């Protein structure tokens, strides 16, 4: 037995050393606390929800935000500065999104804010079909998407495991050190390493993200769209698909929880269903359910074939639309 335990200890020693090294390096900035999460020399993609949460914790007392934008990365088209034009002057805005956000994620965030006695004067909810049909955190299990225990029912082990896995992923490690030494973003690096030729800029107070792609498009839009079309990022939309998702009982319960919180705080809110490149229209049952749950003139559906989803120039790629679309949407939704 002693021989066995000794052998096991010796065998796992390199693993323990590697683990210590990973925690010390803290590639994804989750093992230690930081005052600022985004910096000029950062090139690793961070977990957006975690960074928003930590920023909120760090700066809540000074900033005291009372107006929040919720949604997935698609919500990043909506900028706090643009939104403020439609809010009372005293409003302090904050962008509280998550990568691959789920409906449950928004509910839990609202409940977190409520529990921590934040005011909810204004709320902008950016939905899409994918978000509405995700009623649990199951699909959010990678380092970029895993939800923090303060927001979800994940344990600390559940939360930290994907970061440990990602930190020893040979592809990530290779990408990290390749970029660290040569400062050149290569296509194999994927989503772990941010493209720093056109870096995203994050407002460290309200967490708005300004995509570097916007600058790239402004420099040479023809080159940008030719490149994305040739690489297959935009596909042909000749055959339109239907939204076949079913509204589940759980979705209705989650939407009701959102409604109850917003009503309790007498929040001025708007719900936007995002314009998507796939032009799939939110099915009528779902739309009717949302309409019946929330007040009149609060829900605005931009899915399907329309002036916002048709031009290619409204999108960075098939998943994300550009801020000028969001600005036009805000103008419309706040005109009622």
């Amino acid at each position, binding site marked *: *037995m002693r*021989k*066995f335990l000794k*052998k*096991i200890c010796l*065998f796992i020693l*390199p*693993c323990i050393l590697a683990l210590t090294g990973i925690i010390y390096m803290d590639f994804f900035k989750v093992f230690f606390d930081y005052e600022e999460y985004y910096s000029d020399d950062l090139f690793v993609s961070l977990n957006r929800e975690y960074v928003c949460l930590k920023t909120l914790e760090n700066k809540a007392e000074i900033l005291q935000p009372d107006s929040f934008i919720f949604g997935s990365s698609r919500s990043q088209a909506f900028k706090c500065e643009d939104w403020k034009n439609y809010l009372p002057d005293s409003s302090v805005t904050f962008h509280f999104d998550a990568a691959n956000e789920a409906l449950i994620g928004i509910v839990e965030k609202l409940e977190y804010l409520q529990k921590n006695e934040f005011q909810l004067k204004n709320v902008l909810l950016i939905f899409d079909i994918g978000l509405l049909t995700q009623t649990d955190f199951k699909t959010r*299990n*990678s*380092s970029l998407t895993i939800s923090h225990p303060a927001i979800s029912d994940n344990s600390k*082990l*559940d939360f930290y*495991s*994907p970061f*440990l*896995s*990602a930190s*020893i*992923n*040979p*592809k990530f490690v290779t990408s990290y050190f390749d970029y660290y030494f040569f400062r050149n973003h290569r296509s194999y690096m994927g989503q772990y390493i941010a493209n720093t030729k056109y870096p995203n800029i994050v407002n460290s107070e309200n967490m708005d993200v300004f995509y570097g792609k916007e600058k790239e498009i402004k420099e040479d839009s023809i080159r940008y769209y030719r490149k994305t079309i040739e690489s297959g990022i935009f596909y042909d939309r000749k055959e339109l698909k239907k939204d076949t998702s079913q509204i589940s009982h759980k979705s209705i319960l989650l939407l009701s929880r959102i409604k109850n919180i917003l009503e309790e705080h007498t929040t001025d809110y708007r719900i936007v269903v995002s314009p998507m490149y796939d032009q799939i229209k939110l099915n009528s049952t779902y739309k009717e359910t949302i309409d019946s749950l929330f007040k009149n003139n609060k829900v605005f559906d931009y899915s399907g074939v329309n002036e916002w989803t048709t031009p290619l120039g409204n999108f960075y790629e098939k998943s994300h639309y550009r801020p000028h679309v969001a600005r036009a949407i805000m103008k419309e939704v706040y005109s009622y």
Partner: protein
Amino acid sequence: MLFNSIDFAIFLPIVFLLYWFVFKGKLKAQNALIALSSYVFYGWWDWRFLSLILFSTLVDYTIGRLLLKENDKLKRKLFLWISILVNLGFLGFFKYYNFFLDNFISAFSLFGQEIKVNSLNIILPVGISFYTFQTMSYTIDVYRKKLAPTKDFVAFTAFVSFFPQLVAGPIERATNLLPQFYKKRVFDYTLAIEGLRQILWGLFKKVVIADNCAEYANIIFNGSDDLSGSSLVIGAVFFTFQIYGDFSGYSDIAIGTARLFGFNLMKNFAFPYFSRDIAEFWRRWHISLSTWFRDYLYIPLGGSRGGLWTKVRNTFIIFIVSGFWHGANWTFIVWGALNAIYFLPLLLRGNNRSNLNVVAENRVLPTFKEFIQILSTFGLTVIAWIFFRADSMTHAMGIIFEIGSKTLFSIPDFPMRHKAFYFIPLVLVFILFEWIARKEEFALSRLEYKWKKPVRHVVYYSLIIAIISYAGQEQQFIYFQF
């Protein structure tokens, strides 16, 4: 609790240390620890269903004791049927109630009779098909007087709920496993090391091979309406490796874990995709279930005795029941029937036992004939797995018809195809490992006699890195649903 979870990575060392240090040499205490740990292991998923296991344990233990005292044939038969009815009753209610109800309603609607009965929202208890079969084997063997009924309730509880194989097998025979609970267990270094290697290989099969194949198989099967025949074939091949990696991976972890506690479980897989005909495949795939059906259904039905018609009938019964055991859906029944049809030519020609040895036993590579035989058997299983994986018969037939169309010869085009093609070399390396070790119990078996220490350690660490790298996409084992 899943084997591929952090929870299990913490649970296992704790139980191991308690077992060998705190309760060392105390057989009763070790058995009690196994029983208690097994209940914790199962209760981690849903503690409410522990009552089912406990009830099943109590019924079979009591009936075992009653069978010992009773000599009257009729009464003995009655006790046996009580046990079978209780066990199959649980299984029937939790697994098949809605299936029978729906089919009953559909059958009546054919004659214009509308029956309005709501199906029940029943949760299927994890592993119910496995532990009910295991406990039934005990009562049947006691009834047949092949096994003396146990007096030791703790040992029997530990036998029924033994956590390494509780939820997805191997389905142990009481004659093999129960006596191991009576013997004093001494720590065996070689057995424990071999167990760890088997756990490592099982985790690799599950986390790296099966879970990645699952990603692509799911994309293709879920979007099958829009995909070409060639893409659907790739999806079916991915599922073929997914189910093998998933289920044989689970069995490896189960057998390896049992070895850490000094137990030997039966072999459940023997490199089935290297089989030269379908009969050989079924001698190598889910061995514990195939032999269970052979011993407790096929032989009592008359087995191979009697005329050709009896053999054919019994073969079909076994395969169809086996299909139905997997799930309450017509797709599983058709999957079983299809395998029986595959088996039929071998049975009729009397050469269903012609490939009993390991393929290319004393050679590195198979002969051309063997290679063709392996490929064609593999092809047949891929087609059968389509029924196993499809959501419904309509779904399965849609896939089969598309594969039979001219789109089979088009260039495969499905979402994430580039990522999927990058994964194929890893699958090929996996096949190579399995091929090299095809005479062994599992791919890393007895490695200390074959490879030098530094090479072994490179392999171990590479596997660990691969497992941890892919661990984020934790997926449940397919066979949990059975």
